[in-house]
């Protein structure tokens, strides 16, 4: 009994600093953001009379609605693109590759290099006078540089799909590794074709990994700042760019706080809806 209590107190005491630090830095800013969202900016000072005007403005402003919906749209596209591109790689590493550790290392190394520089690099690749155009011209494939590569949604989705690749590959790889391989043999013995085996065993059993990958990618990409700012142009701007402007040049923190909270709530809502649908799909996929 004494041992049990000392174990409890020791565990709690040791984990307290990290838990409290993270907890405080999650909860306190959230509280202050909420407070700010009910205040108003009065030129240089903040008017602390509580009001809903920020919410009224943000929810009715067409630009805010447009950027928010587009952020969710782009993040959704990017999630699908990343997961669809990543699944075969995860499958290859888990089922076919001989040197799994080496492959996993190769996949994760680019992730550890500067995100800012990787995005910047895509800008150089896709630019009007960039790498892709100059390579295609010197190969004789095109006469004029292609202008549609950079500064649009496509560039944002491509860049994000590159940046988040390991976050899709790893969860799917883990779920493939955990799968009981004897089920595949059983399916073959019972006369399944390769496609049927994949459709009825591999896919349903790796579904949780796919769902995890989707959420891990979707949630942070909605709020990505660097990629839309560098390769998005005016067409590819996202909600985070507007939030940054409120805290920077526009100097309207209450509105910035409101936008942050609305963005967070929307992400939460979409993620919850997605999980709900995923659970339904899981029932029917078998």
């Amino acid at each position, binding site marked *: 009994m004494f041992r049990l209590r000392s174990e409890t107190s020791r565990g709690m005491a040791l984990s307290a600093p990290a838990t409290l630090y993270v907890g405080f830095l999650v909860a306190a800013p959230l509280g202050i953001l909420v407070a700010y969202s009910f205040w108003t900016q009065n030129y240089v000072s903040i008017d602390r009379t509580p009001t809903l005007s920020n919410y009224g403005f943000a929810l009715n402003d067409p630009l805010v609605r447009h950027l928010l919906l587009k952020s969710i749209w782009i993040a959704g596209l990017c999630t699908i693109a990343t997961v669809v591109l990543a699944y075969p790689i995860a499958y290859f590493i888990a089922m076919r590759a001989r040197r799994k550790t080496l492959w996993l290392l190769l996949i994760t190394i680019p992730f550890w290099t500067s995100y800012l520089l990787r995005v910047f690099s895509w800008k150089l690749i896709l630019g009007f006078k960039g790498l892709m155009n100059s390579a295609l011209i010197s190969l004789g494939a095109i006469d004029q540089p292609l202008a549609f590569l950079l500064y649009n949604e496509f560039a944002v989705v491509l860049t994000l799909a590159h940046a988040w690749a390991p976050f899709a590959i790893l969860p799917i790889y883990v779920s493939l590794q955990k799968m009981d391989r004897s089920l595949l043999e059983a399916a073959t013995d019972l006369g399944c074709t390769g496609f049927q085996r994949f459709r009825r065993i591999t896919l349903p059993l790796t579904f949780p990994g796919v769902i995890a990958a989707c959420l891990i990618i979707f949630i942070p990409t909605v709020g990505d700042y660097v990629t839309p700012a560098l390769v998005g142009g005016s067409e590819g701007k996202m909600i985070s760019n507007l939030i940054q402007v409120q*805290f920077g040049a526009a100097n309207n923190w209450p509105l910035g706080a409101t936008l942050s909270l609305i963005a967070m709530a929307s992400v939460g809502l979409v993620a919850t809806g997605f999980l709900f649908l995923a659970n339904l799909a899981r029932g029917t996929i078998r």
Partner: protein
Amino acid sequence: MKVALKRIAPSLSTYAAVYLVFLYLPVLLLPLFSFNDGTIVAFPLSGFTFKWYLALSGEEALLRALLNSLFVGIASATLATSLGLLAARAFARYRFPLRHASEGLVMLPLVVPGIIVASSMLVLFLFIGLKPSLAAIILGHAFLTVPFAVSIMKSAFDEFDPSIEEAALDLGESVAGTFRRVTLPVVAPGILSSMLVCFTVSFDEFVLAFFLSGNEPTLPVYIWSQIRFPAKLPNTLALGSCLLAFSILLLVLAEIFRRRSTKRGTGK
């Protein structure tokens, strides 16, 4: 069936090869063109030169940003690793109420969108009277890197055999002495690995530093200010290449230490 498999296997490995090119193209592009004797990034390459690297040494603002980044990286990695060390020990060794909740909570910084962390921390820090500064960035980066520190330290403690601690206690060593003379040396490579990973994350982090740096930019914030100017492009490429090399070097070291820590802990 066998035939179908054989047909699919080579196409899958071809896809894997193409995917690797996709992954590495942007990473290898910077060093390739940093040695190019031209000011635009386009084929054909015009000639080999070292001059962009030499030009870097004359930039005083760059040196200052580099020192800021080193300072922020070391300080935040130390803070995050200390928090991670204690928490990971608790998670690996003890059963206690709310353990799962607290394990989940410390992983939260990984999934919160960057812009929300950045804006909310700016608001919080100003609210409690902490002006945008290196100290603010350190606190922010420690928050972002705690999940990395906790998971690396947890794998170090998972492999750790608690019976050698018990042996030290039985032989009359105090609790603090056991920690210092038995536990710490065994998990030391894990600590180093965690320090290196946290440092790398902090060293490369942009959005939070962008919000929280007053007039003291870190290296990524400095790069951000440079990439708007096309004339500065070759310098930025050279600087970026140095950073890539540095990040990869740190990670290789971190991986070596991490492997050493898991080997040591099992007593083999």
